[in-house]
């Protein structure tokens, strides 16, 4: 993957995705390695995302790289009206790889066209966030021992949740069965369902979360945002129907794990946290290993 930008999850083949997960395992076993000593990683966050930025910066630091960048557009020359083209070309003079987050969709693809150094997309608007997908895959493989032939439930906002769309695309390569739990207004978009069908896989739609819990290996929770509803009364009606409480997990398989891309608001009750099935904080930790694997692999040191 040397020098290969990662903009969309589809930029990497199934084999390349697995290769990143394998590398990440090595970093989990030995997180501190001085293999990027002398390298400079730029983190350009044109919109704030503290969690993602810190995860990348932690990954770079543990490998001995120096980190430069900005955490919001207002503290960069963007606020003076500089074009994205100029920002990328300038920063590429100072760094070996650019990690970027930008509110506009397509910004990372454009940056990868103009940049002489590789780009890692850390989220472009509502479009892609491929490192989240890879860390989700890593978490699934780690907790289930495999990626193939799993029963996976997605719960909550399946319409706008880009993590759900990207992970669905990725798992289409691994013979997954998809259980889709959402209010009517927030069902999975038809182009994503078509992708499942194109791969000759099955999906099942539900409005009640309790039905799927005993059937699945992974329960992937997402946040339902009030502003997604055209009718506020509809929001009030459904908001409590998609909250996971500990007692609901009684009938679940022992090996089942609950994932969430975080931040959570109220869709997982705190009483779930001590349950061994709750995996969302380890999931976030896995993000560091996956990002270490990406940085090292794209910079060509392993």
């Amino acid at each position, binding site marked *: 993957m040397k020098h290969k930008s990662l903009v969309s999850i589809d930029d990497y083949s199934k084999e390349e995705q697995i290769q990143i997960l394998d590398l990440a395992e090595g970093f989990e076993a030995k997180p501190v390695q001085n293999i990027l000593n002398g390298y400079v990683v730029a983190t350009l966050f044109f919109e704030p995302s503290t969690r993602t930025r810190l995860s990348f910066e932690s990954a770079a630091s543990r490998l001995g790289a120096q980190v430069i960048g900005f955490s919001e557009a207002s503290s960069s020359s963007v606020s003076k009206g500089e074009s994205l*083209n100029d920002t990328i070309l300038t920063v590429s003079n100072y760094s070996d790889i650019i990690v970027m987050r930008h509110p506009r*969709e*397509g910004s990372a693809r*454009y940056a990868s066209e103009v940049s002489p150094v590789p780009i890692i997309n850390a989220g472009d608007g509502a479009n*892609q966030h491929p490192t989240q997908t890879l860390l989700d895959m890593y978490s699934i493989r780690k907790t289930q021992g495999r990626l193939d032939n799993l029963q996976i439930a997605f719960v909550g906002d399946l319409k706008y949740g880009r993590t759900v769309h990207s992970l669905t695309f990725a798992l289409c390569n691994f013979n997954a069965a998809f259980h889709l739990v959402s209010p009517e207004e927030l069902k999975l978009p038809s182009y994503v369902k078509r992708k499942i069908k194109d791969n000759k896989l099955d999906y099942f739609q539900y409005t009640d979360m309790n039905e799927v819990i005993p059937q699945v290996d992974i329960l992937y929770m997402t946040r339902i945002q009030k502003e997604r509803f055209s009718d506020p009364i509809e929001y009030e009606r459904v908001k409590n129907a998609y909250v996971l409480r500990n007692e609901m997990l009684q009938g679940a398989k022992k090996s089942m794990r609950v994932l969430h891309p975080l931040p959570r608001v109220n869709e997982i009750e705190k009483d779930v946290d001590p349950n061994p099935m709750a995996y969302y904080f380890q999931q976030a930790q896995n993000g560091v290993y996956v990002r270490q694997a990406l940085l090292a692999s794209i910079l060509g040191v392993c």
Partner: protein
Amino acid sequence: MEEVKTRTELQVSAIENGTVIDHIPPKSVFQVVKMLGMENCKEQVLFGTNLESKKYGRKGIIKVANLFFQSDEINKIALVAPSATLIVIRNYQVVEKRKVEIPDQIFRFVRCFNPNCITNHEKITTKFNVIDKEDLKLECIYCEKVTGKNNLEFI
């Protein structure tokens, strides 16, 4: 009687060498002129619109002297004039005649319908993969959203 019929008057003068684009929907004539950059063309450009057409009722036609287009260049007009016929003239003779075809990729001209796409906020040439030619669907290579014929807008 027969002789009179063959002497039909040309509504747009013939050209010696060049390209004729026939069967353009009348409303698209000026868009085609723009797409092919003929506004700045130094050669003779003749055009007519709302001409009678047996096949289409009304049609537009453009004749441009001494210009010959590459397929990729001319095919983009299929977006606004799918019925157009391309005729290459040399020495007043038709040497090639074919229908335009929607190309696999479209550069420039079309705006991405996604208001949050980077191409609508920075000076970036739009690029689309044509993922459906029948029911026109253009996938933006940047934001990955699909612009369909109902929200097709030209820059």
